[in-house]
């Protein structure tokens, strides 16, 4: 899957810029739904989001699930995810957006607590149910009519988890390449009126 995605991206990257194409503003829908594979949100996740700052900022709320059958642990994840677009280009008939962001993930699984049971002394542990996940992303917007939001956007993100950054800084044994992981996803525009 990764190889296919990489190959598709290579081909798209080398498509020439067609100056003769009619100028078109790429606009993410004000409200959108999304589905994601991996990325520390579970095997798969679904979410709803809204755009701000003329398309540059997105904020979405996600639920992800990892079934026990995959590798032995069942994990429910709730995540508030925000991304800021720092670059946008038109390539051929596509728009490519580059963005960075941060996700606050709350997980429900075994032995994982926001508040520990009474038999633990107070302040014995910090919560182990919340992690902060920074990420970099690239999004490919499929074309649509000039006055409509982009129909569908597919994205890939390179992310990590808060504790891995700290460990990599503190330990030479942990190489920078050891802390990153990938995810893929797709967003769908929603009607302006749907979430109002």
């Amino acid at each position: 899957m990764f190889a296919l995605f990489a190959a598709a991206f290579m081909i798209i990257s080398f498509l020439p810029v067609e100056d003769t194409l009619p100028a078109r503003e790429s606009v993410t829908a004000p409200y959108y739904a999304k589905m994601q594979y991996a990325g520390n949100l579970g095997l798969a996740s679904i979410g709803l989001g809204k755009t701000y700052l003329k398309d540059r900022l997105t904020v979405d709320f996600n639920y992800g699930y990892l079934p026990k059958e995959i590798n032995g642990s069942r994990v429910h994840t709730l995540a508030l995810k925000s991304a800021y677009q720092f670059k946008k280009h038109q390539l051929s008939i596509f728009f490519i957006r580059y963005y960075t962001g941060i996700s606050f993930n709350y997980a429900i699984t075994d032995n994982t607590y926001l508040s520990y049971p009474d038999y633990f002394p107070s302040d014995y542990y910090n919560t182990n149910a919340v992690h902060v996940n920074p990420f970099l992303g690239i999004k490919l917007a499929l074309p649509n009519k000039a006055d409509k939001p982009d129909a569908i956007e597919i994205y890939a993100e390179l992310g990590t988890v808060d504790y891995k950054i700290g460990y990599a800084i503190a330990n030479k044994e942990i190489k920078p390449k050891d802390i990153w992981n990938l995810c893929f996803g797709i967003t769908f525009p929603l009607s302006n009126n749907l979430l109002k």
Partner: protein
Amino acid sequence: MKSFVTINLTGLFLLSFISCSDNFSYSPYDSDVDKDHPNEEQVKMISNIALSGSDTFKFALLSDIHDNYDDLSDAIKRLNKHTDLSFIACCGDITNSGLAQQFEWYVDVINKSQHPFISLIGNHDYRSNGYRIYQKVFGPSDFSFDAGNYKFVFFDNVVWENDNRSPKFDWLTDQLSDSELPHVILTHIPPWDNQMTGINNLVFRDIVNSENTILCCHGHTHEYADTCYNGVHTIVSEAINDREYYVISLVGKQSFFKRIRY
């Protein structure tokens, strides 16, 4: 120019994607580990060494790794220079929060050991799905083996992180009663710690005493101790970030040790 910048940025992403070692992560809490280090396999190597050993049986003790992988790596480099060790025992808290990636990083480091390396579970290793992951990587959390003329008992005595359940004292009783060999007992939590107060402490003291045990080794407190508890010589290891380990010599029913700072 725009297409050049775009291609460069996209290429940078692709390079990053290709170079990250663990392509997809479903959750920091999942039990997906692709490395193992079974204690049972390590024990087989101990037995081979112990058969050709002398009257003195030597092993090394260290504990409480948490997130200090460089300190562990340095300790192993030093320990590899000892030629007379039968094995190295880590007395628990091999991770900080029981996450699969933390177990994998630990295994990456201990794989550099030239001695058999035995890993006991600690309370931090129970957190999240850590107990399940520990079993995948190392095997059962209670285990024992004979080496030299001694029986070594690695006893999982984590209470709070184990749903406030008492340790498997019946198993420990069986281990101490089914062998005439002098026993060495390793637990992560010292019996006087607050996880082991009350009935757990009383039961432990009833089972483990100077008649059946010559030495107890613990971790957990991050404070070195050399004491006699319930009539048994007891050593508590510092955490690994204090950069010290212990070389313990067993001669007959006596135990001696050197505290080595590095």
